[in-house]
């Protein structure tokens, strides 16, 4: 439980960070809150020779509006997400989900950038970002590009990030006023990753679901967008038969691993239940 030796760098700008990463090559890793990376280093599952700490880069922090988008700097901590009134009001599902991440100690250091860039299917933010239709800004030696969250995740710990690139911000379109939302997460205890979790953002019109998107956490090697399940509920009043259909459609795309949280069958089953419950709660909240 002791990491190997590494050198530590603390650039003051994105340009410097990008330059360091491309100069140092594969042996270098960006360091954000360290709450995913450092445990891996302690187990020597990750043995970077260089850590490029992003804490010195002031421009990577903060929450601002850009038109109808909420733009969150990569180094904004989960605690700062929770402290933001703007998020609580315009994007309450982000507030709700951030509260379900571990405990205050983790949230004081863990960042949104680290959480979404890590590529860990257990992290809660990625599925949420997919549900909300977010895009990530990636900056590297070759310049900046935007990648949709839905296109970012390729496999467990495999993402669209190119070597030497850093994720600088996430940009989330603010959902329509009066939308309903819910993040339902089943976990064994505080500090545990989801056995299964579902994010739902929907709008209702005349008692029927008008728009809906559903994201799934930790039931596959990547976060998932449950498109068929979302389609199944559009135009319905979420009657029992529809909920069952939606849960089944969601379960059909799940492929969780068996672990101490339970066998595959259980994790899929409760994944379906999280979808059902999130839909019901979201609908009840929609105006």
């Amino acid at each position, binding site marked *: *439980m*002791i990491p190997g*030796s590494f050198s530590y760098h603390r650039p003051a700008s994105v340009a410097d960070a990008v330059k360091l990463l491309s100069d140092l090559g594969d042996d270098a890793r960006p360091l954000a809150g360290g709450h995913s990376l450092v445990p891996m280093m302690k187990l020597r599952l990750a043995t970077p020779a260089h850590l490029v700490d992003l804490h010195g880069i002031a421009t990577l922090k903060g929450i601002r509006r850009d038109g109808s988008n909420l733009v969150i700097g990569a180094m904004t901590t989960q605690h700062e997400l929770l402290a933001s009134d703007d998020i609580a009001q315009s994007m309450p599902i982000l507030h709700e989900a951030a509260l379900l991440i571990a405990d205050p100690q983790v949230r004081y250091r863990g960042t949104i950038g680290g959480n979404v860039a890590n590529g860990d299917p257990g992290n809660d933010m990625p599925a949420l970002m997919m549900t909300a239709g977010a895009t990530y800004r990636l900056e590297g030696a070759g310049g900046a590009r935007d990648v949709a969250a839905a296109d970012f995740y390729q496999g467990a710990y495999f993402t669209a990030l190119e070597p030497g690139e850093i994720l600088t911000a996430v940009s989330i379109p603010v959902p329509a006023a009066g939308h309903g939302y819910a993040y339902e997460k089943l976990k064994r*205890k*505080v*500090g545990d990753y989801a*056995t299964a979790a579902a994010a739902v953002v929907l709008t209702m019109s005349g008692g029927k679901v008008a728009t809906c998107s559903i994201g799934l956490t930790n039931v596959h090697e990547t976060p998932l967008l449950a498109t068929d399940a979302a389609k199944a509920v559009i135009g319905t009043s979420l009657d029992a038969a529809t909920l069952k259909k939606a849960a089944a459609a969601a379960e059909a795309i799940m492929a969780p691993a068996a672990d101490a949280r339970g066998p595959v069958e*259980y994790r899929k*089953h*409760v994944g379906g239940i999280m979808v059902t419950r999130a839909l019901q709660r979201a609908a009840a909240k929609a105006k």
Partner: protein
Amino acid sequence: MNDLTPTREQRSAALEGMGCKRKRVEDIRFTQGKGNYVDDVKLPGMLHGDFVRSPHPHARVKKIDDSEALKVPGVLAVITAETLKTVNLAWMPTLAGDVQMVLADGKVLFQNQEVAFVVATDRYAADDGINKVIVEYEPLPPLVDPFKSMDADAPVLREDLVGKTTGAHGPRKHHNHIFEWTVGDKELTDAAFKKAEVTIKEMISYHRTHPSPLETCQCVCSFDKIKGELTIYGTFQAPHVIRTVVSLIAKLPEQKIHVIAPDIGGGFGNKVGAYPGYICAAVASIVTGKPVKWVEDRIENLTATSFARDYHMTTEIAATKDGKVTGLRVHVLADHGAFDACADPSKWPAGFFNIVTGSYDFPTAHLAVDGVYTNKAPGGVAYRCSFRVTEAAYCIERAMDILAQKLNMDPAELRLKNFIKPEQFPYHSALGWEYDSGDYHTAMRKMMETTGYAALRKEQAEKRAAFKRGETREIMGLGVSFFTEIVGAGPSKNCDILGIAMFDSCEIRMHPTGAGIARMGTKSQGQGHETTWAQIIATEIGIPADNIMVEEGNTDTAPYGLGTYGSRSTPVAGAAIAMAARKIKAKAQMIAAYKLEVHEDDLEFDIDGFRVKGLPEKFMSMKDICWAAYNSVPPGMEPGLEAVSYYDPPNMTYPFGAYLCVMDIDVDTGVYKVRRFYALDDCGTRINPMIIEGQVHGGLTEAFAIAMGQEIRYDEVGNVVTGSFMDFFMPTAVETPHWETDFTVTPSPHHPIGAKGVGESPNVGGVPAFSNAVNDAFSFLGATHIQMPHDYWRNWKAAKDLGAVA
């Protein structure tokens, strides 16, 4: 006397003696981060040791190449079994009469077994070194399932025992067999079953778990070559035993070994025995001439340092149709892992499991325990319980519920019907114990009244009907548990550790100003001894508890004792304290008589001093007597005021309690909610009610963890899959239910202050309460016994197997 003269109540309260909710004096340093733990010990020139561990559960070690490791800057030495053989320490004796490899000798027998010890100038270098030691293994077939240990074709695990047909506890039936232990009258019991009207039989497993104290096991060993002295700072629950063991196995004179147990961050049985880390650190210090620190990390603690439980108990009860028990038959398959490293008194291979008749008047019983080896970490220790008592309590409490279900009787009623009656004490159990005192009916009825048991059963019946009608997906369970513990090991007639009788001790030294210091052979790991021991002395001799300093853990200054585990401190050391205090008091009485110019017999003790009978104004305070002890003792008497007592208890003590758990379970997810938990404990005389409450809260939290998910699990090929707190369930304040505590007081008749011990009761009684609640919840769907742990997915699986979820 005037208005300012304190009343008797005020004088008594000023002592903060027994019965007072005195605040824990140790918390002043703990809450400010000023405790002094082993890892705080930093000696000049100190080196650090760390282990290379086996990735394989069973393999032959072909070769260990340390050449690259020795090139790592800071790495000074790599110790292997070959090194240890030169000092005859490659193997060490266990407390259970087995031997255990200190470092892999030819073979590894469990995953994460210690293979080599890397010594370096700091922990980082040591870890770098570990990664450079190249070990060549030849994997062997792993044996994981204890039920297959004694198969004819089971692999031979312990090559050192090949051909040995007897072990420390009698004949061995198989190459993977450790011992068989039988108690009770087999013929009589078999006969009771033959003519029984009703019988039940169930294989009740108590899964492998782990004490997991927040502070892991650690030590600093410092060998002084000039003086030939070895000083060991360590996380030891029994420092004197460690000193003797080190002396015997390292062949060092015992007076040249100094064992110091500083503040300890929880023990729960994990810190009783000796571990390879201690031996390796000591050898490394002898080899290098420098102090060597060894600190385990969490993964090492969970996966290699002694586990607990792993008892598989086939349990049968014979009874009459109307619910009177007539016989008990239990066979236990005990999985000890690779080495039998139980920390039980030497003659008790299955501890006090023969308390398995519990609180019930079984006319006859028979018990057989078979211990076996598997490719798992060695143990098992008594995790917050007297030796194997929690397994026994779980076994009988679960079985009584199964019987109640079969008889269609309420489980509380069945218990009331079979309790040992108050007039039967002292009670001789069918499996050989003499229960000291108890009033089970009163405790049970108080539990039932306080919790509104009858109303809860009614609510449950309504909820069940609603569930059947499809109106709810939630089921409700009531977990009744009535446990009897056996603690206070123990009387020299039946308890010893490596030949040392399990007495305990206290030395009290009063100073001239009416203050004093008291030292014991026990060692607090969080129990609050510094607080409670002083309270006993305060009441016994009339000196305020605040004036008594309590010191434990230094073998040079403390009288010899067997340490703290098995709830033995209050029953044994607590008695020694009272007896030593009484010696002080007796001498004080002689001094007071001399000073007051009366005969001793004319004096009576009055709270904080001696008074002449019939002459209330003639009084001498203990404080003044202390002063007099140093300047004007009666002619012929030695000055000073000190006493030592070594207490060999005449019997164990038998705390008991009635617990109730009310639980709701969502069948669709298996998620449970403990709606209510009520714990009534009877631990005899109560020394400090606040500390008792704290102990009960802590023990219940551990019981909750164990029953609801805390498990050391191996996969089919012997990989341990629960190596961190992510998967090993350690509840936080968020998961922990609210605890309601209550009590009755039935003093122990043989203990000087009537106290019985309480630290472990809640773990012993709590586990069956939780498990019975889960089982009770599912019983109306047709379940008879669902194995622990009852985590979410297993609850869901139970519901699914019973057809309650699609």
